């Protein structure tokens, strides 16, 4: 084929890659400068001196920023496990058991997921206050599970529908109950679906903002996106700390996304394609 379109293609690809990475790269570069470098004129495009001081400083002086990441991790992991467990059961029932209200239930579950999260805040805050769930991991885990269960149920139900039902029927003939079929046949056969869904839910939970903001009011319980956003000092935003903390907070997501790129993309497109 002729050469020109190829060059055009690569230019466009390169442009998209650069634009996608630019804020992240700039942030990383910022985190590797010293304070003078960050606020220097003329601006430093490359850190000079190149230093890990900001990272050391976070560990020694602002360990709460690391605590935020730990909180995010606990909440996201807990939410993923809870969601996959109960959402998997619900998805299985809705995809495989003929229930009189099954279809209605599915539509209902999807419809309630349309509510804007902020509309939940006044009442959730009150209820969590009453129930003593404010500033607890379990509280935010349940709240996130509520937000992401509709997606989970939908995803897993579509996945279960792709399995040949005869295997489960054979298991029924062999004498297994529904729970045992789910645990020993369905889960092993649909783990790619669980992995994809779980990864996306983990990312969703890690990234969730409004509920995490309102339901975790104590500094020590904040998740990374909220904690870092609310971190500012008294006068100006301390960009050397913020950039470094942000880098630390997004690294887990960057790694997960890079490793499981295929599963995540597959899950997203499967969920939207149906």
């Amino acid at each position, binding site marked *: 084929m002729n050469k020109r379109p190829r060059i055009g293609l690569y230019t466009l690809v390169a442009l998209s890659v650069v634009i996608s990475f630019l804020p992240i790269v700039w942030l990383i570069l910022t985190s590797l400068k010293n304070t003078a470098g960050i606020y220097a004129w003329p601006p430093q495009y490359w850190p000079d001196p190149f230093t890990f001081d900001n990272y050391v400083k976070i560990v020694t002086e602002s360990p709460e920023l690391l605590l935020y990441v730990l909180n995010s991790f606990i909440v996201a992991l807990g939410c993923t496990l809870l969601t996959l467990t109960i959402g998997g059961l619900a998805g299985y029932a809705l995809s495989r058991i003929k229930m009189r209200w099954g279809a209605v239930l599915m539509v209902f579950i999807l419809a309630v997921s349309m509510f804007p999260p902020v509309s939940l805040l006044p009442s959730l805050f009150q209820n969590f206050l009453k129930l003593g769930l404010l500033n607890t991991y379990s509280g935010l885990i349940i709240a996130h599970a509520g937000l992401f269960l509709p997606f989970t149920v939908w995803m897993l139900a579509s996945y279960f529908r792709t399995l040949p039902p005869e295997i489960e029927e054979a298991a*029924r003939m062999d004498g*297994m109950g529904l729970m045992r079929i789910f645990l020993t046949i369905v889960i092993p056969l649909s783990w790619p679906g669980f992995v994809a869904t779980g990864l996306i839910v983990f990312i969703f939970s890690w990234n969730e903002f409004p509920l995490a903001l309102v339901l975790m009011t104590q500094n020590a319980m904040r998740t990374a996106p909220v904690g870092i956003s609310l971190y500012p000092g008294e006068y100006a935003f301390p960009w050397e700390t913020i950039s470094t903390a942000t880098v630390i907070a997004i690294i887990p997501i960057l790694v997960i996304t890079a490793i499981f790129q295929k599963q995540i993309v597959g899950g997203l497109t499967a969920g939207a394609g149906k």
Partner: protein
Amino acid sequence: MTVVQLDRIGKSYGGFKAVEEFDLTIHDGEFLVLLGPSGCGKSTTLRMIAGLESISTGLLSIGGAPMNDVEPKDRGVAMVFQNYALYPHKSVYDNMAMALKLQKMPKAEIQKRVGDTAEMLGLTDYLARKPAALSGGQRQRVAIGRAIVRTPKVFLFDEPLSNLDAKLRVKMRMELQELHDRLGVTSVYVTHDQIEAMTLADRIVIMNGGVVAQVGSPREVYDTPADEFVAGFIGSPSMNFIDLRRNGDDGWTSVEGHLALPPLSFDTGQRADLRLGVRPEHIEILDPGADDGIGMTFDAKVLLAELLGADALLNLDVDGIRLLARVSGTEHPVAGDRLRIRFHEAQLHAFDCESGRALERGVPTLVS
């Protein structure tokens, strides 16, 4: 003694009746085949026996005990599925042993049973493998083995050979036959393949649109089809049908073309019309000069001749009617040939034009 009794069993999905009034007693040790076109309700019937579908109306009993509300595992039946339905993540051994493990059978006993069954089916060397590492025929053997180890009172098969290639299908068919002879367990077998049905069955149930069209031995359904549907379904290629109208001499003339036939020995009653059926293999091609004038002989022109191998199919024009004839021999006629053909009265079938029911043989009623 395992008699399976289907007492006017029916299944509806919402308003749609997938199976209606299925009434049959399956004898102990019988090999019963459910045959019919796709969508006619064969699988639904089988699955009602298995307990995988609930029974909407009627009563099912196995070995004398009512089964409608009994869980599949407690019915004493085992099922072999078309796509094998093996547990892909478990070894052949575990696949075969699963039901026994769930019954909490002692381990030694399980090992012995699975071992014996595997040996019978030639699977001993594959017990440690996963299903993915087996050929199609081997997988189906495992599926059958999984059913056998349970020593069920009834075997249920849902098109077990449909996923195999033609050669393997014939081989497995024979193996199934041997197996049945050996074990003598009551079996219900679903297929849409009439050759499978003819070769395996003690009795065939032919279904059409959720209803039983005919129950009978392979011979019976071939020789005396109960209605036009069965007549057309059994036999390959299909039976020729000719619409006839009574003429003034109590003989019959074809509605299309101008084929004329003498009075027929069917119990036609006062009917003014009927549908005649002639199987392609029952149209005799007369040798030149062999026309002795006996029986119904006609002039025919060969429009097309297709060689099938040992046989050939002739597309004939007989007095303006298209008929298919099956002839044997390598020196068959070719397109353009003109022939004499003969129908043998005893091999003809007649059907009511409206209901499609077969007419009994008997003395024809003469109206003129």
